[in-house]
């Protein structure tokens, strides 16, 4: 079970068009990525809600094709 980095990024760009999206490949097996998303869309949301927004962007793949995705969300500085 895996997903290419390009496909992962395309999901995130579609859902967070304004975001800065940083993806780190942790193992080279299309199954262990670390994603950092910086977006104003997270304004007013707690961490759980922010991460749930990311899971929704991944359209049900989280916990399935993507079982070991590390997620960090943050608001733009300043």
């Amino acid at each position: 079970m895996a997903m290419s980095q390009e496909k992962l990024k395309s999901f995130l760009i579609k859902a967070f068009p304004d975001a800065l999206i940083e993806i780190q490949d942790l193992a080279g097996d299309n199954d262990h990525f670390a994603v950092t998303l910086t977006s104003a869309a997270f304004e007013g949301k707690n961490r759980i809600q922010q991460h749930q927004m990311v899971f929704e962007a991944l359209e049900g793949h989280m916990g399935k094709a993507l079982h070991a995705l590390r997620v960090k969300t943050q608001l733009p500085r300043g």
Partner: protein
Amino acid sequence: MSSLFDQIRETLVSNDVVLYMKGDQKFPMCGFSNTVVRILETLNIPFHAVNVLKDMELREGIKTFANWPTIPQLYVKEEFIGGCDIVSEMYETGELQALFAEKGIGA
């Protein structure tokens, strides 16, 4: 599904800290579950571990219950705190320690 949710609520009501995980406290079966176990042990926080690998209906049901697609899941006083990433981040910023202190749990 509702009886499963009742079972989950019962567990959450009767334990201050509950960790739904893969494996158990002595033998975590996944790196993410292991990370949260180590954090709780480092903070001397007693917790009730639930091994979801033993109950496939629970393993999927808890994801629906919390609207959270992965395991582990940490609950403190019936409140969902997060998975490995959020718990680790809160540990690094000290928010997790503050949460336990505020709830009167642990040291």
